[in-house]
């Protein structure tokens, strides 16, 4: 058993992470003979015997159970086609959209129109990445106002933080409603100033996601910025 790279170090595809049969390759790695090799650009993490790579970049791949923020791109006869910031479009069928009775042939744009953003859940993904969505679940709703920003999907866990600690810290400090989709789409709604500061904070988290002590740093950053703006100018 020998690790060839320090934990938390940045590795590139093809780099040998460990030799010997004591470790197991997890996501972002593969085994070749007695070596474990990285297949993604990212940070190496060891948990028990597993070695995995936390990717630093990459697209969103739809996963069952994820809550994402989607944009309506097409209205069909029996539902909506939505862009979930991945290579594949997703479908929301009528029966998963609402529990209300909808008459045959009625205009579906009265529920979701082209360009609307919605917080939505992925209920099924096939091998060919055909993705089904559902609006049934707590907190799933149309997002009529606010602003949308896009971040690298692999950084979403850091933006949310452990059990939501990071995003709730930003929310609490700024009095801004924030919804983070697993697909890297973030919805913000608050006073313009709070929104701008929230965007700035999220960009900082995204940029520095791979450096230790992130929560403390972001906490200090928010404190400083709020002090700068003088307590009264950030509208509560």
């Amino acid at each position, binding site marked *: 058993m020998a690790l060839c790279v320090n934990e938390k170090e*940045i590795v*590139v*595809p*093809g*780099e*040998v992470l460990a030799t010997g049969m004591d470790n197991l390759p997890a996501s*972002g790695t*593969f085994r070749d003979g007695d070596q474990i*090799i990285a*297949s*993604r*650009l*990212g940070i190496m993490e060891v948990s028990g015997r597993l070695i995995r790579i936390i*990717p*630093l*970049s*990459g*697209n969103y*791949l739809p996963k069952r159970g994820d809550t994402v923020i989607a944009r309506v791109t097409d209205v069909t006869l029996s539902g909506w086609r939505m862009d979930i910031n991945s*290579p*594949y*479009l997703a479908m929301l069928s009528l029966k998963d959209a609402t529990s209300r009775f909808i008459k045959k042939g009625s205009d579906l744009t009265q529920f979701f129109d082209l360009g609307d953003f919605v917080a939505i859940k992925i209920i099924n993904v096939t*091998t*060919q*990445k055909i993705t089904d969505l559902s609006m049934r679940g707590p907190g799933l709703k149309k997002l009529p106002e606010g602003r949308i920003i896009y971040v690298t999907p*692999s950084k979403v866990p850091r933006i949310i933080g452990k059990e939501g600690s990071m995003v709730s810290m930003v929310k609490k400090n700024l009095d801004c409603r924030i919804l983070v989709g697993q697909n890297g789409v973030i919805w913000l709604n608050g006073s313009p100033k709070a929104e701008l500061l929230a965007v700035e904070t999220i960009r900082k988290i995204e*940029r*520095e996601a*791979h*450096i230790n*002590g992130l929560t403390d*740093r972001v906490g200090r950053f928010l404190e400083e910025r709020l002090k700068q703006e003088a307590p009264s100018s950030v509208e509560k």
Partner: protein
Amino acid sequence: MGYDKRFDGRRADQMREIEARVGVIPRADGSAYFRIGRTIAYAAVYGPRNLYPRFLQDPSKGILRCRYNMMPFSGSGERVRPGGNRRSKEISMVTENALMPVLNLDDFPNAVVDVFIELPQTDSGTRCAGICAASMALADAGISMRDLVTSVSVGKVGSSLLVDLTYDEEAYEDEPVSDVPVAILPRTGQISLLQMDGEIEKDELIRLLDMAKKACWGIYEVQKAALKERFNCVKAD
């Protein structure tokens, strides 16, 4: 006579100066810059993304699409007709074939990864520089890869075996020249591109491949450092 002293004074197995940077095109999903001597390549990767027209889609895995392009003002300054030609089409194809063995696109059925390689300044070894840049850009885009791809051209001018020929050497008039671009996967030593222009003996080719392999390890270290630097340069304040 014979060509035993190189025009730019390099040793036979010495490459030109190499420089690499990653993340040079913010809008792209992945991008890289690779310079070897006076040859400059930019690569931008978009995707995996939706692929149309639909008949190009492969339901079993994603496909790779490369576009190699020399800019009109590149080379010696004679204006090249902009856009594709037979040569660029062939090089796009061999670039695709050189990169494909390391890519794992099984997770992206029906999708495409687009790689655009642009060369603003050229002094031979363009396909090799393009492949080096493209492999870094693909890694930067977060695509699953078994290895990086490194590439260099080797060749024979007169009776000397040389690494990384310049245009002046390729166009040497007094004696026959052969030019062999090679792409190597550094971890396993497998060869994913091997072309030749000219004539060569078998044992000389074997020696050239050996020289190419050594040169590629040097390139690999530069690529690795550039990829890590992309994130290591972010400092906490």
